[in-house]
């Protein structure tokens, strides 16, 4: 057996060991490992900013409650006693074409106003991974509302998604 042949046999063993080692590594990788990469910020809600008549952000001096009606006709409170804030976020329904939100506002003199906002939207199923919970993004398409305490509501950014920095709506309350 010449020297070159011995070297070739030795080298071939090394190659085959490398191949076998990789196959074992590969198999153990699939048995032992998985990773889940879901977004940390995964809340989808509409962000309202309260504005004055000039369109500037202003602080709410009255107290605001917001609620809605569930599928079984019971009420549920979405926002409780908001005061001294200039913005707030409200949940948005996953797949209902129009959400109804009731705004109840009271001032320091005990005067209360009641308004209803109907928020129309398109619902877009949003998928991240099979490991991440199902969510919906939304495209706001229109608003209608009563005008007892609300002066007007304007859609600023119609796309409602995971981005918490977006302002979706400007709300203008009527002056006392």
């Amino acid at each position, binding site marked *: 057996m010449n020297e070159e042949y011995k070297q070739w046999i030795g080298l071939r063993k090394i190659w085959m060991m490398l191949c076998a080692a990789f196959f074992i590594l*590969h198999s153990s990788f699939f048995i032992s490992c998985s990773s889940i990469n879901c977004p940390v910020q995964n809340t989808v809600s509409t962000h309202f900013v309260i504005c004055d008549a000039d369109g500037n952000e202003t602080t709410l001096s009255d107290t605001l409650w917001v609620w809605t009606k569930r599928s079984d006709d019971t009420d549920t409170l979405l926002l409780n006693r908001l005061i001294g804030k200039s913005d707030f976020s409200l949940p948005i329904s996953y797949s209902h074409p129009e959400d109804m939100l009731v705004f109840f506002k009271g001032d320091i003199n005990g005067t209360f106003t009641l308004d209803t906002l109907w928020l129309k939207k398109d619902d877009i199923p949003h998928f991240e991974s099979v490991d991440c919970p199902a969510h919906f993004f939304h495209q706001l398409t229109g608003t209608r509302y009563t005008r007892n305490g609300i002066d007007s509501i304007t859609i600023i950014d119609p796309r409602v998604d995971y981005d918490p920095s977006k302002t979706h709506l400007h709300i203008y309350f009527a002056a006392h």
Partner: protein
Amino acid sequence: MTQARLICIFTSLLISASAWSQGFLKWEADTVPMFRGVAVSFDLAGATQLQLSDYGQLEGAVRVNLHDQYFPTLEIGLGKASHENDEVTGISYHTSAPYFRLGCDVNLLKKKHTGNRIFAGFRYAYTHYKIDLDRQNFPDPVWQWDTGFGVKDEPCYQHWAEVLLGIDAKVAGPLHMGWSVRYRKRLAHDDGKPEKTWYVPGYGIQESTRLGYTFNLTIDI
């Protein structure tokens, strides 16, 4: 094992290969003919993956041997994913579609005609696939309406590129065994209405870059 650890392994192998491969691009001047035959191979890693997890691929390749130095390669496969009713999220995902990769490997060894090879290569790859995505009805957390979620036969596509490093060892006669580690980079994609997909046939779980690998049994024909 994290992707970072795989990158470390890949880098170490690349450095080792570089050390072994002085003058690898130099055409070896000898009497060995230019055309050295054709080989076919089957990827055992993808098939094992398909057996052990919810996704994987059956993949074969045809490789032309040019002077034991350059290996133009066509890889064709069928990628499948079947994830049924996830126990946490309740989501089901199905796809099954063909894909191809086209590229070339270069033998990095100085002695190129021994039958064993360390190679580096590149690939361009493409798949056009359809996904079924379904989430069983679940109540809206506030309004409590039942909410459906899903798409059926949603068409998607993806182009991607790969650079790879691998070894190939002659086992006996025409039979070779080898593996490759691949860095994949997504070039262009359309994920349809859901805006994201999960498993992309031939690419793996959807991310902008990925590490992948193959373990090939090859026969010279």
